[in-house]
């Protein structure tokens, strides 16, 4: 079995170098700051719309990694790591892209999992990509990074939407676990789904809506963690999740916005 040596439970940010993806830089959490370090004209509006009246601050402990330049606007890899918010229970990680026509990309309730997530995003144009992390005290901690792209990601039809094959494979789910050096597990799952945004002519919104990570007590026990993807998540999504030592997943179940179900078991 392989161990994932580059990973630790509280991964430090790689040193700057020519290949290092752009990373959030926010102010110290001791001095709550409400001025957007990404200097986006849409931030105030987004905060009101998505975070409501709850207190929100930019927090460098919420790290968002994405390539500073992404030529393929249909598949922009995003990694969020909020594990530095030690001692504070993370209730929700909300992914927002300021200049996407559909701002909200995903909501993740990590539950028993680490507050860490990887996925791929469609971007309509260059935009800040944010992770707003809500802790149990009701505060939002916000990190983010700019991604430059040539655009068009949200108003293009999916490849699957043009393929006669896609229906047979719809919601086919693959999942695999890797051991981590800290005794926990890394999980990846991939689901065949067109994730159509509804913004391409004649193709209605059709996307995954909820995916639960099941524990050993499934199906009766509560989900270990819940992903709620929205339209901007890339076609055939791949999610990367981390579990701490002692938390064991047995599989996933979920559905899309048309009620099509998915399920997959995790083999030990």
């Amino acid at each position, binding site marked *: 079995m*392989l161990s994932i040596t580059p990973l630790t439970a509280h991964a430090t940010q790689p040193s700057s170098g020519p290949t290092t*993806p752009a990373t959030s830089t926010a102010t110290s959490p001791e001095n709550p700051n409400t001025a957007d370090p990404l200097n986006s004209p849409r931030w105030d509006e987004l905060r009101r719309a998505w975070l409501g009246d709850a207190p929100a601050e930019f927090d460098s402990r919420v790290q968002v990694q994405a390539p500073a330049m992404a030529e393929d606007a249909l598949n922009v890899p995003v990694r969020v790591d909020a594990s530095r918010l030690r001692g504070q229970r993370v209730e929700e990680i909300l992914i927002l892209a300021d200049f996407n026509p559909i701002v909200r990309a995903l909501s993740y309730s990590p539950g028993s999992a680490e507050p860490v997530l990887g996925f791929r995003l469609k971007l309509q144009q260059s935009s800040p990509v944010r992770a707003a992390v809500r802790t149990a005290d009701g505060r939002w901690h916000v990190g983010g990074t700019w991604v430059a792209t040539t655009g068009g990601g949200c108003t293009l*039809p999916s490849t699957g939407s043009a393929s006669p094959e896609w229906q047979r494979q719809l919601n086919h789910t693959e999942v695999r676990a890797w051991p981590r050096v800290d005794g926990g597990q890394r999980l990846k799952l991939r689901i065949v789904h067109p994730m159509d945004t509804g913004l391409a002519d004649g193709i209605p919104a059709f996307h995954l809506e909820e995916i639960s990570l099941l524990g050993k007590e499934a199906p009766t026990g509560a989900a270990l963690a819940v992903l709620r993807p929205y339209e901007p998540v890339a076609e055939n999504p791949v999610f990367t999740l981390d579990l701490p030592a002692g938390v064991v997943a047995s599989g996933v179940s979920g559905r899309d916005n048309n009620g099509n179900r998915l399920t997959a078991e995790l083999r030990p």
Partner: protein
Amino acid sequence: MRAPSLPRPVLCRPRLAALLLAALLAPSLPAEADTVVPGAAHAFDYRLQPRRITDGVYVLIGRTEDFDTRNGGNIVNTGFLVGSSGVVVIDSGPSRRYGEQLRAAIAAVTPLPVVLTLNTHAHPDHFLGNQAFPAGTLAALPATRDAIAREGEDLSANLYRLAGDWMRGTEARPPGRSLAPGRLHAGGRELELIALDGHTGADLLVLDRASGTLFAGDLVFHDRAPTTPHADLDHWLAALERIATLDGVRQVVPGHGEVASGTGLQTPLRQTQAWLRWLQQRLDTSAAQGLETNEVLALPLAAEFATIAEAATEYRRSVLRLYPQTEHKALQQHGAR
């Protein structure tokens, strides 16, 4: 279980594919304003200086950079062979202006007519100068002709975005004539055409028999990191093995970077091989460890590539394009171990 209610139009696919390809080729941020003063005498002059590398063999070596509004897309090598009765052109450059200036540069060397204009593969810096050459001389492998006909306009639009006004008047012109591998006599020169693939779906190499000059196209890069928007790494590595076995090669003209000969003859080939093997291993190892794409991007480059131009940029592009497939393969191997 219920499938979604509306039919999914198949018409959308070609457009998507083309846009994707264009996006994948886009090497940098959207073009800034052109720095050349409009109307100045030097405006949009690529200053092409054909270099004679041996009897009747000329090359024009581009910069080992990305496309931008300063270089106007002159980041590519082109060349021409002067025979007893005509001229064979190998790749026509990134724009109509480049093609026209290349043709003028040829005319300054010889009064003989261009009898054959080859496009080594369907990447825009290698065929967008085609308009400057007689339509009847344009030739390429069949798959290259198809790709230019299918994607040429989108690839051209992408270069307009990157190189700006240098591109004015440029349109994709697919070659009308198909080439087959083997011997070809043109203009009084004896050529060996070699058809391989890996950098793209069809990569043509031209070996000039008399001089032993191999025009390797973009299967071979020299002191410049290989680009992979349409690459198949396994096929590319196999193609390099094949190139290493070719007889009668005395100098190599890579698609990008300096000409190699003498004791350095094998250097571009070995460099390209080393980069591709390293890249492939990096992708495989990362996927086997379960790394997410950004974790792979954050890994350092191997020290041996420190002096290779555009290494960091091409690493990022290659990981973004190739890692999803490698990652998917690793995901499918669950339970196999």
